[in-house]
């Protein structure tokens, strides 16, 4: 990495001293207005054909000023939402008026097609979702993942919990792997960035997954949360292999290309947004009310048998006395208090952009504080970004993007546990009859006598008052791109681009639980401290050549508009070093890991990839026909054969029928086919030995029980995609439909070996799964004027299947808690996300079988924008139909005889109270369907009411204020669902490749309200 940086420095230094070649000519001014209505168009980009260094932008009055070389020139004016226009400016002309037609469907936005190429959306032959800046930042979100919810058809985007600092996952077009990665590839301005999840060590407190220091049940945030949505100009989601094949072995789960904002020449333009708001829990579980001591005793103390022994009687009397003495009142609302932190959340975002003809800058700074609802939790993120664009004469432009991030979170404690330390878990067994929040005169919290009492139990008020579960991330993402216009002529252009960047972060985790906490003795040690550190580095560099050939319209190739040939080579590297140090049995009062009995763990990984690619794009017949073909050849250090290149080809085509019938603007038919891969995991190829412990004070080495496979290769996905896009009535109605059909072979699997081999299992490639589905969208913009209404409805359905499996059917690790509660199993002939669990048959026998599917039958999103003059109202509803959830919340609360609806009437005239009826019907896990529940919901994800202060008032404001907007926003305002637990979208096991269905004492999901003020000057 150091070598790369120093080389880049040298390169930039050389460029800086290079002779300037640009001939300064003349200045042209102009104004850009909307064809409909005539209002000025702000932020339109002005470029000059054949002069890549020339860029300008319109101001709030739609005016611009651009320096041009002498002679006639063609200007291109474009902005999202309007149709692009070319204006010929003769040598003598010095001012122009441009009127842009609306492009409601944004069909002229450019879509990335390769490492260094793009094409207009109207031509693109694959389904690509684009989310624009305004849609990401309208309603403040914990993280980018959160902000994308409901906006990407073809993806399931879920938040694992409501803990401040984010943590969620994006699954595009279904399950593509079982043991490999299930995460999309994230590329920020050409830099491949990490979305790693680093667990901080909460398992040391909860023992959720046994004695390890950390586990997947730690509710850690994935690092996508570090990005600043305010900096983002657009997010493009390449879903299918025909679009993403150019990313090779990392593309199976889709590629998310994030482009940040950049400066344009002109005076400095400031954009300041201040938001203030508050988070509240969207849904809590409540608990049972006990009207009297007697009711409490009757519930929890089993009656004494007539023939009881003296010792039985003594135990009975002690239990009665315990409950009687503990009882204080029918009900204390523990959860309202525990999740009752209402500290102010805020976000301040300041950006300034501007520049000269040769140098443009975009600088932004954001500080965001998200107060958590759980006592003592919160997250603070600071982002600083500098994006610079520099032209060196006519032919060379350099683009540099850097972001510095600090992300500090305190996420408290939540999720599964095995020692009643997790608040919602222990409360399930704690009747709310005692004021656990009241400290005594010495400041001590009362001991929770319930849920086992003593060190088997905890008082969550005490726990949250004293524990620390912090992570502190420093991150730097820097990228650069150098474009050289090597050849420019009427018919040919050759652009050489060097693109590269580095993503580095260091995450420091600190966990401390002092020795006096009630649950602390449970593991045999008083007090726990963990220090964790993860150092993650990613680097990628590519060299690209793009030759664009535009044949003479009169020649033999006149039917061809352009032929774009691109080729390049790439290098990518990832390295991570994680270690945790834990100390238990701490001396009182100190969280220093030197002060206890220590253990530790370390994992290091390094992956390096090399690739070549080639791509041909043909635009022909008056831009009606678009054909693409390409391949990527990639080899990687994680493959068995490190020298072998795996080839990932792709091809796609689209044809536009323009005005085929009256009222029909355009119909585009498109089809694509492509292959992409998913890399083996680090170490899958290595046959290793393992430390087998000590004998007589010396370490011993034995064979690892899992045998690496020196022939392991990437998983391979082949995907066919067909689609039709149509727009009607001058873009008032538009339809998009896509069918995808993916087949994944050479899956990474572990195959059991004969025990007589002396080894346990072997990593292999094999089997086949499929994922097929539909993505449909309907866009309406029936009213455009003083009152306008825009509506976007999307529909997504996906179904996966295990076609063949060369190993016995198996349970997916970390997918649930066994047949009693439902979990994922991979079995041939069944859905990849089938949930298996016990069902009791009428004859009383029970069997482990398919009881549901984690994947919803469909999801739909309804987005509507109403504007009337300066007022606008925007809503986003998200509907999920089907998809089961393993509702451990309900199971725990029924088992604790403490559910809020425990005393409600049971169905079918059953005399038992509802909670008892549910728990006994579950029958110790022989009838899993009681707690494997339907996760359907409709959520009001986002609601915004905004008011743009009219220009006449703005003009009278002091200073140079150009625009002022006030908005009131809400997120997750309401959920309509019959689901019992906290939320059907949460995941106890964090991000999972196959399915994540476990709702188990999570950090409750947030509802947030924000007031935002945006000023531009």
């Amino acid at each position, binding site marked *: 990495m150091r070598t*790369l940086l120093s080389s880049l420095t040298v390169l930039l230094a050389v460029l800086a001293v290079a002779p300037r070649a640009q001939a300064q000519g003349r200045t042209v001014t102009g104004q850009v207005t909307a064809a409909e209505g005539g209002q000025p168009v702000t932020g339109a980009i002005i470029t000059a054909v054949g002069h890549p260094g020339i860029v300008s932008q319109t101001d709030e009055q739609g005016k611009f000023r651009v320096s041009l070389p002498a002679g006639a020139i063609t200007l291109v004016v474009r902005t999202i939402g309007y149709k692009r226009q070319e204006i010929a400016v003769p040598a003598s002309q010095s001012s122009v008026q441009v009127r842009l037609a609306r492009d409601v469907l944004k069909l002229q936005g450019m879509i990335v097609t390769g490492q260094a190429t793009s094409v207009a959306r109207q031509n693109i032959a694959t389904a690509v979702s684009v989310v624009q800046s305004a849609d990401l930042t309208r309603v403040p979100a914990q993280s980018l993942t959160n902000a994308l919810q409901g906006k990407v058809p073809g993806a399931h985007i879920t938040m694992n919990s409501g803990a401040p600092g984010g943590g969620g996952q994006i699954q595009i077009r279904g399950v593509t792997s079982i043991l490999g990665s299930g995460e999309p590839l994230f590329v920020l301005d050409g830099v491949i960035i990490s979305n790693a999840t680093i667990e901080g060590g909460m398992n040391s407190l909860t023992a959720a997954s046994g004695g390890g220091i950390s586990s997947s049940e730690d509710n850690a945030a994935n690092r996508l949360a570090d990005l600043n949505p305010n900096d983002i100009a657009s997010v493009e989601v390449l879903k299918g292999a025909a679009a993403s094949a150019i990313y090779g072995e990392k593309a199976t789960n889709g590629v998310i290309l994030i482009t940040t904002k950049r400066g344009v020449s002109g005076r400095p333009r400031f954009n300041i947004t201040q938001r203030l708001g508050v988070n509240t829990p969207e849904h809590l579980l409540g608990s049972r009310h006990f009207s009297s001591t007697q009711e409490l005793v009757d519930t929890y103390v089993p009656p004494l048998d007539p023939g009881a022994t003296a010792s039985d009687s003594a135990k009975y009397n002690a239990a009665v006395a315990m409950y009687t003495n503990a009882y204080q009142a029918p009900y204390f609302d523990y959860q309202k208090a525990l999740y009752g932190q209402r500290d102010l959340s805020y976000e301040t975002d300041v950006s300034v952009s501007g520049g000269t003809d040769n140098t443009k800058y975009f600088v932004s700074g954001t500080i965001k504080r998200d107060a958590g609802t759980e006592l003592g939790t919160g997250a603070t993120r600071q982002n600083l970004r500098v994006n610079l664009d520099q032209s060196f004469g006519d032919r060379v432009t350099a683009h540099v993007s850097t972001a510095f991030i600090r992300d500090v979170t305190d996420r408290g404690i939540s999720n599964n546990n095995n020692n009643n330390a997790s608040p919602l878990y222990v409360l399930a067994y704690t009747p709310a009859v005692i004021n656990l929040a009241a400290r005594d005169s010495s400041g001590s919290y009362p001991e929770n006598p319930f849920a086992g009492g003593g060190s088997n139990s905890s008082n969550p008020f005490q726990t949250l008052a004293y524990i620390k579960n912090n992570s502190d991330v420093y991150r730097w993402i820097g990228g650069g791109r*150098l474009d*050289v216009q090597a050849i420019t002529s009427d018919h040919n252009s050759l652009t050489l681009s060097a693109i590269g960047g580095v993503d580095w972060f260091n995450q420091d985790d600190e966990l401390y639980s002092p020795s006096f906490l009630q649950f602390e003795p449970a593991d045999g040690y008083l007090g726990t401290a963990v220090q964790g550190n993860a150092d993650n580095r990613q680097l990628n*560099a590519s*060299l690209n050549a793009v030759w664009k050939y535009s044949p003479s319209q009169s020649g033999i190739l006149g039917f061809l508009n352009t032929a774009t040939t691109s080729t390049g*080579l790439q*290098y990518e590297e990832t390295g991570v070093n994680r270690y945790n140090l834990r100390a238990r049995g701490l001396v009182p009062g100190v969280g220093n890991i030197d002060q206890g009995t220590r253990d530790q763990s370390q994992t290091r990984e390094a992956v390096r990839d090399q690739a070549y690619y080639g791509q041909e794009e043909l635009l022909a017949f008056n831009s009606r026909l678009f054909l693409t073909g390409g391949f990527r050849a990639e080899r990687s250090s994680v493959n068995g054969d490190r020298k072998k290149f795996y080839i990932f080809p792709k091809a796609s085509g689209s044809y536009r029928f323009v005005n085929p019938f009256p009222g029909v603007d355009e119909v585009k038919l498109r089809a694509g086919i492509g292959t992409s891969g998913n890399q083996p995991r680090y170490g899958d190829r290595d046959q290793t030995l393992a430390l087998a412990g000590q004998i007589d004070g010396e370490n*011993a080495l034995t064979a690892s029980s899992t045998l690496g496979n020196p022939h392991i290769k990437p998983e391979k996905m082949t995907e066919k995609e067909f689609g039709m896009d149509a727009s009607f009535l001058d873009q008032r109605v538009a339809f998009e439909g896509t069918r995808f059909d993916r087949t994944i072979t050479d899956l990474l699997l572990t195959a059991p070996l004969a*025990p007589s*081999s002396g080894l346990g299992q072997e990593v292999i490639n094999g089997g086949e799964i499929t994922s097929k589905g539909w993505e449909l969208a309907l866009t309406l913009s029936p009213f455009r004027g003083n009152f306008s209404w825009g509506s976007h409805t999307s529909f997504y359905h996906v179904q996966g299947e295990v076609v063949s499996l060369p190993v016995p059917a198996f349970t997916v690790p970390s997918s649930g808690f066994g047949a009693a509660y439902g979990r994922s199993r991979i079995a041939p002939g069944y859905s990849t996300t089938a949930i298996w669990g016990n069902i009791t048959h009428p004859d009383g026998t029970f069997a482990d079988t398919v009881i549901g599917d984690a994947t919803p039958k469909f999801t739909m999103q309804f987005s509507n924008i109403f504007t009337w003059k300066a007022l606008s109202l925007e809503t986003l509803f998200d509907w999920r139909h089907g998809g089961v959830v393993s509702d451990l919340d309900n199971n725990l609360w029924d088992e604790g005889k403490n559910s809020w609806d425990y005393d409600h009437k049971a169905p079918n005239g059953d005399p038992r109270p509802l909670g008892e009826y549910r728990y006994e019907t579950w029958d110790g896990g022989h009838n899993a369907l009681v707690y494997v529940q339907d996760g359907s919901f409709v959520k009001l994800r986002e609601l915004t009411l905004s008011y743009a202060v009219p220009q006449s008032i703005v003009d009278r404001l002091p200073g140079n204020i150009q625009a002022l907007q006030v908005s009131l926003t809400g997120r997750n305002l309401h959920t309509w669902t019959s689901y019992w637990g906290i939320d059907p979208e949460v995941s106890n096991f964090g991000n999972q490749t196959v399915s994540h269905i476990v709702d188990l004492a999570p950090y409750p999901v947030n509802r947030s309200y924000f007031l935002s003020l945006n000023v531009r000057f």
Partner: protein
Amino acid sequence: MPSRYTWNARCGARHLSYVTVVGCAAVWVLLAGCNSDRLMVPDYNSPTPGAVSADPGALQFAANGILIDARGNIGGWISGVGRLGRESYDYMQTEGRSTTCWLSKPAQDPACGAGSSLWGGYYDALRDIFNFKNTVQASTVLSDAQKKAALGFAETFEAYALEFVIEGRGHYGAPVQVMEDPAQLAPFVSRDSVYSYIIGTLNQAKVDLQAGGASFPFTVTSGFDGFDTPATFLRFNRALAARIDAERASLGVSGCGAALSPTCYQAALKDLSESFIDPANLALGPAFVFSTAPGDNQNPLSNASNNVFVAHPSIQADAEQQANGSPDQRYTDKVYTMDAPLGPGGAVPGIFTDQDFIRFENPTDPIPVIRSEELVLLRSEAKWFTGDKVGAIADLNAVRTVSGKLPPSTLTASSTNDDYLTALLYERRYSLLIEGRRWVDVRRFGMLNTLPVDVPASQMLYDDLVIPEAECLSRKGAPADVQAPTCGG
């Protein structure tokens, strides 16, 4: 950084055209990123065999691995066949299967047939021995003598692992090979072939140890003090050979003639003469050591580690009396009577016992591998069946009167073989209590039916351990020569 100067020199630092700059960048990317050597990333988390064989000190870790494997298997064997031989129970109150799977379930119950856990561990050990031998043979730093010494060490433990495999499954045979490709199945061979392989391996180890010079190229754990050079380790090797030859003789495997015929007992006598047999020091012998240090293991059978590992009540009832009326000293030394009897728990069929072992009281007490006491009894057995009945009675009494403090045996040179075997099995039972021999002994002399069945209605006696379900599944549909017996087609 020289590379930077090289780069500048190659591309020239001044007056560059942009194309040249990009060209140089291309060269840089090609040089830095596109050489496949860059992809040779090591495994940072676990050692690879290649890395280990390149490190001369690593042989020590691998040797420790062989010992840790052998140690790891011994507790489960003693506890498991202790139940089958009606020596012990594992009365875990919350896990009825620790009783039912060993005493009540049909032998081939796929869920928990007896001894399904006493299989893979021995092959894990064989895999590590296989890797160890390969490492030794490929070594460029070991002398020939050191290689021989290391091979002799590994071969001895190879035979030791296979001993348990075949002692448990005499009617089925077993695979004896570990294949280079673990996906390739090794054939099941007959009991007699397994015994031949074991004795052949021990004899090869003897040859190698004799050529092994003065010391091993690694240190052996403290439990092997006195057996930690090739010459002294050979005495341990010969002790194992004596045990195997006596078993072969008593079973009448091919090459040994009919059961109890002298051929292999003669071999056993020769083995014993080369072993560490010492009637004056019956406790002598190597042992597996334990510790409470982090990362180490504690004695899994100690009272501290396992308080539900209790003794069969017949051990108290069957103990003979010393002249002073107190029970056999071996009973007193190894067993005590608990305050309250312990049963199998819940509805699990079984009887209560108030007998518990104090053989391994502390978690750091070592478990013997093979002791002089066993060797003296093996010599008695071999002498009896090779015609030296007086010598046999003398050896028997050397143990009986010293270890058990009992009056001399009433056997005479004219006693029948049956009388002798009854007497021998009594001495072996109490001398080798919870050393994993009882069930093997009654079977090799065809006296399984002398064992008590506590609950005749629901318990049974086992002649073999099960072939585990996982082994059956991985051989399902395989060619006939590699299919496992009792697994079905």
